[in-house]
């Protein structure tokens, strides 16, 4: 070929040209900008608007956030520091409140020396989570730890004897054992029912006595030695408390000294800035007067507009028609109001200048001292200030003229008055400009003098914060020891009375039984006198109330014996009351407990909703729809107000536990819907395949359907968890102290009264970090699962 062409064509390219460098506008950052940000007029507009929004937001937030104060003991101190840096109280954040209270927002009133317990529980949570989330990367045996984790975490957070969680877990073991044994003998229905009954029997009837027995066994051996220790402590602890109080008094004195030093520093800085303040004192009333004059001028303008519209006095101009007269009356009233305004405003502005400002000569005299020495032009400026009389005389004249204005006045008069007011406005404006010029110069000359005191103030504040931290530690120790002291005293007295109490139990028991037998058979089950029929005689009432009293005395004595033994025989961690659990920890506890407990319930509900059994299906559908149709907050109120109605009389348990129950039921309904979606997304072939293998319903669910459906539902479950976790803040409305509850508590403290944004930002950031991380994780899972499906 080439030979042929060789004769006809003089040159044939046998090599591609090297790739050329693209034009500048078609490569790199410029091309990216052109295609992404400035590709059309709409895009340019959007870019500009959003850049402006970003600028606006950042210019508002960044100086506030990064110019904040970290060391201060109260909002007032924050403002003092900000003021010494020429910032308004909104110009910088008072992060000191976070520094001061962040532990409270995180842990609530949990004892500080026991923080390790919730932290350890939280760390273990991730280990427990590993076999669920990263099943392919961790050893399979770890799943046993995951199963044990709920009991370990509960024990760590609430404390108590170490056998309590073991006994509780034994309930499940008993259930499984019964299931295994019965499963071999009978069918699955009987075995399941038997397992549930056995577990309930264990928790309801067997676990309590075993626990009490263990307490009594351990406690009985300790009684003597414990009394001895407590008596020794009763001698020792008051001395320790006294020592600690002396230390804390020392610390308080140290703090008072440091505060005095700080106040002196502030005083010194104020003295440097005294001329600024003097000018400021002149500037402010004049600015107010200026605004009033502008207002007067505007009022005159409006008056002129009304008179112009009605061509003179509105009442005179109107004709006879009724609506017109009433409108004219309104206009006339308005005009009179405006006239009054003008006169008042002029009088007030005279007052502002007359009473609140001084002669320029006085101002100038104050300048001579230091600032003027650095910048002599200040004095020249001060000479330019007009005398008070120059402003007041024309204003007085104007005020007199304004008294003469009525609705009959001519537009010319009003116009002339307006013009004259404007002249005064102009001269006042010039005066204000001069003053603020002077102020700027003084500030400029003060800047250098202030650098050193400002730095000193900051370091003093840091020292002060360190001192306060030390004092807090001492105060916490004192509180701990004095609580231990008072608890020890109470416990000692209950130990002393323990033998007597134990001796009195049989007698009380006999007494109760005797009183009970005396009652008619029909009344023995009653729990209140008000339940008696209306025609009951007073004898009957007295008999019943006597029996009820005896019964409650016996029960309370028994409970107090059990409590004493529980305290005496406890081998384990110090118990913590639910009331002390709060802050972000509370949100985590409710959220995690809610999701862990609701997952099995949700699976059962989802299976029930998919079921062909008519009644089971309808029960599940009703439950899910009722729960989902009503807001969580209503369920929480139901839990705190109504749950006691639905349970046997006399039942009363922890508010936190009630909240967890309600949250669990609520989340279960949502999770059921998510899992139902997963079940529905499975191909019918999977169900049919399982059936054709001859698997039973539970086998097919457990081996074929649920593993696949759960995999599909994981992102939805994570999203439900995020929603649930955010919703935990609602518990603030039923009296638990979650982070938002603590933000209210902190604001109730006089030190921090009026602080909002710092707390909101901190709490919001906490939730954001957790929820955002979970959201990203769910996205990651979604992607991973998608690949597996292909």
């Amino acid at each position, binding site marked *: 070929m080439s030979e042929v062409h060789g004769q006809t064509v003089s040159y044939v390219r046998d090599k591609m040209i090297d790739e050329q460098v693209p034009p500048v506008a078609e490569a790199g950052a410029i091309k990216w900008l052109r*295609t992404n940000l400035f590709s059309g007029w709409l895009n340019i507009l*959007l870019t500009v608007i959003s*850049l402006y929004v970003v600028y606006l937001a950042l210019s508002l937030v960044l100086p506030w956030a990064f110019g904040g104060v970290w060391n201060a003991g109260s909002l007032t101190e924050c403002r003092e520091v900000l003021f010494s840096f020429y910032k308004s109280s909104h110009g910088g954040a008072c992060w000191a409140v976070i520094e001061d209270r962040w532990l409270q927002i995180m842990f609530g009133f949990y004892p500080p020396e026991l923080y390790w317990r919730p932290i350890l529980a939280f760390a273990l949570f991730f280990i427990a989570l590993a076999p669920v989330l990263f099943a392919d990367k961790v050893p399979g045996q770890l799943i046993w730890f995951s199963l044990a984790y709920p009991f370990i975490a509960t024990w760590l957070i609430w404390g108590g004897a170490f056998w309590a969680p073991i006994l509780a877990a034994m309930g499940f073991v008993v259930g499984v054992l019964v299931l295994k044994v019965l499963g071999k003998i009978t069918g699955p229905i009987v075995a399941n029912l038997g397992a549930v009954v056995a577990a309930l029997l264990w928790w309801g009837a067997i676990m309590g006595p075993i626990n009490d027995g263990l307490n009594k066994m351990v406690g009985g051996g300790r009684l003597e030695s414990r009394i001895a220790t407590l008596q020794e402590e009763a001698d020792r602890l008051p001395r320790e408390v006294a020592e600690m109080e002396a230390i804390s008094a020392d610390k308080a004195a140290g703090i008072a000294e440091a505060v005095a030093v700080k106040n002196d520093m502030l005083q010194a800085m104020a003295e440097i800035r005294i001329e600024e303040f003097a000018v400021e004192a002149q500037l402010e009333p004049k600015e107010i007067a200026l605004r009033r004059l502008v207002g007067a001028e505007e009022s005159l303008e409006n008056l002129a507009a009304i008179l112009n519209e009605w061509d003179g006095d509105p009442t005179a101009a109107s004709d006879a028609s009724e609506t017109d007269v009433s409108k004219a009356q309104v206009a006339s009233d308005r005009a009179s109001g405006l006239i009054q305004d003008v006169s008042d*405003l002029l009088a*007030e502005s005279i007052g502002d200048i007359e009473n609140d400002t001084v002669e320029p000569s006085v101002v100038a005299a104050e300048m001579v001292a230091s600032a003027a020495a650095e910048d002599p032009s200040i004095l020249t400026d001060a000479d330019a200030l007009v005398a008070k009389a120059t402003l007041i005389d024309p204003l007085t004249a104007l005020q007199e003229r304004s008294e003469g204005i009525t609705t009959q006045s001519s537009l010319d008069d009003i116009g002339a008055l307006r013009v004259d007011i404007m002249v005064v406005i102009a001269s006042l404006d010039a005066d204000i400009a001069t003053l603020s010029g002077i102020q700027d110069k003084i500030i400029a000359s003060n800047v250098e003098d202030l650098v050193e005191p400002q730095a000193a103030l900051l370091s003093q504040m840091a020292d002060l914060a360190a001192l306060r931290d030390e004092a807090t530690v001492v105060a916490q120790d004192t509180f701990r020891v004095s609580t231990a002291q008072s608890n020890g005293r109470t416990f000692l007295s209950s130990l002393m009375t323990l033998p007597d109490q134990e001796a009195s139990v049989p007698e009380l028991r006999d007494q109760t039984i005797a009183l009970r037998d005396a009652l008619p058979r029909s009344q023995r089950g009653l729990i209140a006198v008000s339940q008696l029929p209306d025609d009951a005689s007073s004898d009957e009432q007295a008999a019943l109330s006597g029996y009820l009293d005896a019964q409650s005395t016996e029960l309370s004595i028994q409970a107090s014996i059990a409590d004493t033994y529980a305290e005496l025989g406890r081998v384990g961690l110090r118990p913590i009351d639910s009331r002390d659990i709060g802050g972000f920890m509370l949100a985590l506890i409710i959220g995690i407990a809610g999701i862990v407990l609701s997952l099995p319930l949700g699976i059962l509900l989802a299976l029930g909703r998919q079921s062909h059994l008519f009644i089971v299906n309808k029960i599940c559908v009703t439950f899910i729809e009722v729960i989902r149709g*009503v807001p969580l*907050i209503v369920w929480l109120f139901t839990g705190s107000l109504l749950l006691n109605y639905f349970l046997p*009389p006399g039942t009363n348990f922890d508010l936190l536990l009630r909240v967890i129950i309600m949250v669990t039921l609520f989340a279960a309904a949502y999770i059921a819907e998510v899992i139902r979606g997963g079940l529905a997304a499975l191909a019918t072939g999977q169900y049919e395949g399982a059936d054709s293998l001859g698997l039973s319903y539970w086998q097919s669910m457990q081996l074929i359907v649920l593993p696949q459906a759960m995999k599909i539902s994981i992102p939805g479950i994570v999203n439900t968890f995020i929603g649930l976790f955010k919703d935990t803040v609602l518990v603030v409305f039923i009296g638990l102290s979650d982070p938002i509850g603590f933000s209210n508590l902190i604001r109730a403290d006089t030190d921090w009264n009026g602080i909002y944004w710092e707390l909101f930002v901190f709490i919001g950031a906490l*939730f954001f970090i957790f929820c955002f991380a979970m959201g990203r994780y769910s996205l990651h899972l979604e992607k991973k699962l998608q690949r597996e499906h292909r």
Partner: protein
Amino acid sequence: MTTLTDPPKASFRLSQLIYDTRYRSITIQVIATILLIVGIYWLVNNTIQNLAALGKDFDFGFLTQPAGYDINQRLIPYTSQSTHGMAALVGILNTLLVAFLGCILATFLGVTAGVLRLSNNWVVSRLMAVYVEGFRNVPLLLWIISIMALMTEGMSRIREFRVGGDASMILNDSVAVTNRGVYIPGIILENGFLASSAMNWLILLVILIISVIVVRGVRKRADAVQEDTGVRPTTWYQQLAILIIPVGLIMILMGAELQYPELRGFNFSDGVHLRNSLIALWLALSLYTGAFIAEIVRAGILAISKGQSEAAFALGLRPNRTTSLVILPQAMRVIIPPLISQYLNLTKNSSLAIAVGYMDVRSTLGGITINQTGRELEGMLLLGAFYLVLSLVISGAMNVYNNRTQLQER
């Protein structure tokens, strides 16, 4: 040779109840029913006992007794002498009001943010991502109290609006943003046909609804003409006229007038006062739900395969026609179901009104009424029933709509 085995004898043994699949389902259902009945009996019995022990009865009579408390925001006439039932109704209307306003604004915000997040413009899409993630990952309650704090702490006090004060009204002196709420111009009907102003507004609403129905008729006819002739008659001016003229005419007859808020003494009078509680709740609910709707809209648009728009371009449709005729109708099908559940969430979340003291049904019926009468069981039951019915009605109505759009698939 055929051997005929006898069919198994139809004998029934007790164990078949458990082992035979024909009977087992009945056994399970019977057990479930018995457990359910026992459970309900247990709960009801406990409740009766507890109520008796407290000396209370179960009675809804309190609804007809005078409430004795004031409600600062009301859409219907109400005084402290009105009944508890009336107070509950005022609360219900307030809940519906904030839910309605919230749904509108949330849809607007959500659609805007969702579409812009897909934009090629890097800055805009990042900004929208920040909005969506910021609002989705922080509890709604925090947003509500933040906006409330912004309103009460950040806005000017009313006395600063007086002549010579620091603050001034915005939008040509028609709107005042104060720390006690926002004052906007209101429309008053000076000489309405009926005595009560609510009834006059109802008349206007009915006329508007009739107009909308007529407009739909016009559109339907235009569709028919297009089917017949292939040319769509221009009807937008007819539609606009039918919508505007009757309502406008009646309003003029009733003497409608725009009333601007005006500072008199220590407060603004005239115009409409939007309380801080309403504003905070409304904005927070809308911004929060808007972030979720944005994600739904984005997912809906992304769910339409690229081939659809390419095919539309191949047919010669312009981009905006492609969007309105091809992409949106298909995306709507994906968007509507989760959108419904977001509306439901917004309505239920409006019960967070408690944080800012907005008088919704939870605050009146579920709050003050319960505290005053001590009828927590009855009150909570009614409250739960209200939310349940509302949820079922909304989801039912939306499901009807959903089914209609779904049917066009085949």
